[in-house]
């Protein structure tokens, strides 16, 4: 609009004063907080890479058995622990993810506000806060004392840990699916099971998959639940269903508390390997989410 001659021009600049000052202070605080959060993360990554990168090689990742603590750094490898981590975590995923997704489907799609759904939701949230070593003790007392140490027992313990995370993240994703989509499907003569399988789950699948993979990454890094369930051995045990086993976090625990530098170096290598495995899982999670979210834009 043209400015009428003689009319004073409106001042549209930001007003000076407390509002502007407080705005700048809060912005500065947020930037500081972000940097403070980044510092420990950066240190962990830099230290682990600096101390662990030199020891990692193909034979470190695959060969075994894991050498005794007194052995020098260039002897042997973490093969059994890499194998154990992969097979135990995979088994835990197979046990916990489908159960968790089905549980969340019950809570959000079927349970509604009934007492059973409220109870399950409440205890699932409580379970999220249970210390992971308690999960290990629980499986020890109901499974290991009868059937002995095994990768399966470890998978049970990790599964108990993952279950509430999967339930919670899936539940939140299902809640985000707009009701108008469900109604659109019902209006075409779909049953509740159809609506859930063909509209609700596909609409939420991206978030469900990334939530599940976050739970997997969390479980892959756990030591405590495995202490009483798989024991810690040095030889590779490809049979996940019987016999003591080992894992990367367990070996980091053992090696870090050893006085020998060779063992400590192998511990750093194992730490870097574990970070790399989690990092790869996160990238896969992002790719899978993007792949499934193809139609949601």
């Amino acid at each position, binding site marked *: 609009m043209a400015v009428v001659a003689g009319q004073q021009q409106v001042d549209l600049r930001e007003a000076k004063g407390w509002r502007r000052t407080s705005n700048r202070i809060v912005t500065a605080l947020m930037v500081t907080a972000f940097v403070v959060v980044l510092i420990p993360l950066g240190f962990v990554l830099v230290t682990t890479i600096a101390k662990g990168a030199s020891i990692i090689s193909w034979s470190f990742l695959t060969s075994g058995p894991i050498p005794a603590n007194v052995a020098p750094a260039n002897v042997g490898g973490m093969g059994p622990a890499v194998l154990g981590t992969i097979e135990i975590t995979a088994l835990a995923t197979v046990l916990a993810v489908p159960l968790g997704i089905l549980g969340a489907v019950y809570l959000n799609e079927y349970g509604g506000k009934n007492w059973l759904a409220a109870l399950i939701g409440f205890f699932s949230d409580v379970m999220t806060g249970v210390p992971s070593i308690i999960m290990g003790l629980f499986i020890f007392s109901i499974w290991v004392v009868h059937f002995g140490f095994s990768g399966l027992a470890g998978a049970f313990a990790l599964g108990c840990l993952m279950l509430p995370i999967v339930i919670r993240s899936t539940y939140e994703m299902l809640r985000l699916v707009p009701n108008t989509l469900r109604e659109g499907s019902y209006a075409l003569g779909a049953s509740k099971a159809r609506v859930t399988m063909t509209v609700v789950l596909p609409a939420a699948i991206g978030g469900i998959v990334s939530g599940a993979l976050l739970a997997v990454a969390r479980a892959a890094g756990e030591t405590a639940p495995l202490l009483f369930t798989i024991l810690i051995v040095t030889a590779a045990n490809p049979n996940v269903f019987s016999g003591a086993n080992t894992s990367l976090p367990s070996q980091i625990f053992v090696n870090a508390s050893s006085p020998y530098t060779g063992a400590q170096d192998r511990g750093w290598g194992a730490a870097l390997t574990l970070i790399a495995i989690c990092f790869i899982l996160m990238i896969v999670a992002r790719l899978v989410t993007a792949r499934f979210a193809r*139609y949601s*834009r």
Partner: protein
Amino acid sequence: MDQPEQNVVTNTQLPKSQVEMTPGTPAVDTPDATVFDAQKVSCYYSSFRAVTDVSLSIYEHEITAFIGPSGCGKTTVLRTLNRMNDLVPGAHVEGDVKYRGASLYHKDVSPIAVRRRIGMVFQKPNPFPKSIYDNIAYGPRINGQHNKGKLDEIVERSLRQAALWDEVKDRLKASGLGLSGGQAQRLCIARTLAVEPDVVLMDEPCSALDPIATGAIEDLMRDLKAKYTIVIVTHNMQQATRVSDRTAFYSVLRNEKSDTRTGVLVEYGRTEQIFQDPRDSRTQAYVTGRMG
């Protein structure tokens, strides 16, 4: 301007039977067949009585419009016609709704079978997060049609019926969410037509659309009338006069003693009669714009 407060008709008592409810006079007006016959239908959301004692008949191959101010229960009545309100926790219906002679709310009736015959288009376009093709093929697939050739035919036929084919025929594999508002609504109409329903219920299908898209949907409704029976809820009275054969005017009735409100059917008849010669003063006030 919308001034809903003025639309509230005050009355100290809920009516026993609101208006003499003989839609039209059979002598001058011979509809093909009755599709819906509602008798004294009251709808509740938990203890709230949203609609009281609605009785009306809806006829085959006609477009019936429900008009009235906000909160008068027209959408609620529409949703009782295909048992969509079953999905709302606490909702229940009293009275009887007959659909081609069968009671919709009989205990043996499956809402799934009802909705298979009585489709619905919603206020906000709600395409599924799937491809355009899969959106249309969804209904036939859940009803057991998996033959690729048949599905291709159904998709093309439905999109042509909804006047969308030419715009999307080259991108059937693209997401249904990438369409404009008007296209998305026609996609939803095509999706409803794909299961070859008997009746299409439309809940303010144009309220989110611009006048051009609205015109396209109205043309479409006039075309579809030959094959389907259509019931439409609209806030747009011009739209009701443009497309509908019959109009039902609903209003809000307030009980001052208990300070409760409920929706009632005030007048129902041929659209020309409702707009040019309304028999109830409330209808007259509403359609002439003195209210709302």
